[in-house]
């Protein structure tokens, strides 16, 4: 990832797009973690909320305690707080201070054709960024009634649990699977609902 992006006057729309994508991608990567479950990189996650709440897919986390790697080099442990296999969501909690929190956006305003950016660790490659557009928002054939954000992104194993962001760099989905040549993400609205349920259960307990 380019650490320094220079914007030269009059260099044209393509250079601007290039610089913009690098800038937004870099910002997004800062709050994107790699989750190590057992001895191998299992997937990605998003530092969703303070203090230390990390959202990922349920299929990424199978043990009560996992290791988390931040792009700035920090490594720490996180505990599995709740797992919802039906919705393929999970939330972890880490005690690490000063964590960069992702900016969360609204998934309900997404439009077909809008640019989206995914960050994560495909094949264990940290700090990876991919861009495409929203292909469609809606149910997907064999996957039932729930709404998926479908994007024409190049996702790979290891991207699961990582963020899907809009052109502003605000996270509007969690990358979950690849189907029919497209990347599917759980909308941020579903993640917020999941977190509300988890909080309510914690209070009740």
């Amino acid at each position: 990832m380019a650490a320094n992006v220079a914007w030269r006057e009059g260099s044209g729309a393509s250079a601007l797009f290039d610089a913009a994508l690098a800038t937004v991608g870099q910002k997004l990567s800062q709050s994107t973690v790699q989750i190590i479950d057992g001895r191998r990189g299992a997937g990605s996650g998003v530092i969703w909320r303070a203090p230390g709440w990390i959202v990922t897919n349920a299929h990424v986390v199978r043990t009560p305690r996992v290791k988390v790697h931040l792009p700035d080099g920090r490594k720490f442990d996180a505990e599995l707080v709740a797992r919802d296999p039906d919705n393929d969501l999970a939330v972890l909690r880490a005690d690490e201070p000063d964590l960069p929190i992702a900016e969360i956006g609204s998934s309900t305003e997404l439009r077909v054709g809008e640019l989206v950016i995914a960050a994560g660790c495909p094949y264990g490659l940290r700090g990876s960024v991919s861009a495409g557009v929203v292909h469609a928002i809606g149910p997907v054939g064999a996957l039932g009634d729930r709404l998926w954000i479908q994007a024409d992104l190049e996702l790979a194993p290891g991207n699961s649990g990582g963020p899907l962001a809009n052109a502003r760099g605000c996270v509007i989905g969690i990358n979950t699977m690849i189907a029919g040549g497209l990347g599917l993400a759980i909308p941020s609205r579903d993640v917020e609902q999941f977190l509300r349920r988890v909080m309510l259960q914690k209070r009740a307990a």
Partner: protein
Amino acid sequence: MSSSSDSASASNRASTAAALVALSNDLANAAERAGQGVVAIHARHRVPSSGIHWQKGAAVAADHTVKRDEDIQISLPDGRTVAATLAGRDPSTDIAVLKFEAGSLAPSEVLDSSLRVGNLVLAVSRTEGNHLGASFGAISAAGGAWRTWRGGQIDQFVRLDVAIYVGFSGSALVDPQGRVVGLNTSGLARGLAMAIPPSTVNRVVQDLLSKGHVSRGFLGIGMQPVRLPEDLRGRLKLSAETGAILVSVEPDGPAGQAGLMLGDVLLALDGQPIRDTDDIQAHLGPEKIGKAVAASVLRGGASLQVSIQVGERPRRGR
């Protein structure tokens, strides 16, 4: 770092971020605008395919996605689903034309522009649930006119670097301003994402609406590729290694009338070597109908020249 360069880089970041948002909005607007001319076609099992409302009341689709001739419906951008009739098919260019009652719905804004490598494009489709779909990429290769493996003439070679997904074939190739600049299909070149330029679509639509088919040259033969023996090639000084052996000859067809027989091996047409059946298809475009073509033939170990009057391919029911 000094504070002035801090604020400069901060304002740089703000401008570049705004640029991305602006591009994102442009693309979403282009998809929405082009979507007003993209339809969903129900002519196969399960998932509908995409089509483009090309002229008022006529939609084009990728022929290979139209799996039946009757009982076809079209879902329109205004939400209506109406019955459609198949006006005709041209498998050689993978285009089919459907007619339907458009009402007040306007056809697509189509631009016949010369596409260049690197031009950014969207592929806009309409599929399940009548929803729009889009994928984004660039023109990855552009060249001059080319012939498909089935002998269809396409006016510009346009290959795309976009994700191919269910509904891609028959989707609209769209420029960042939302204008339709081609008909997309993966059925023309071994599954590659290609686009058919508007001039070709217009030509085929004309033929299909007026005649119901695109004329193709016809010889009335069934053939198979065959390897030519070394000694024969040496004796007759033939450069080609293969030819097409006639395994059937329609007695009343153009080749039969010209005296060709079962077992003859076709070596060349008008000097063009025939290695397999695709070469013959490529040679029999509509412009050859009624013209004489010189066939070089191998019969019983000797070569001869036969002149065949090319006929018109009769319409076959599907």
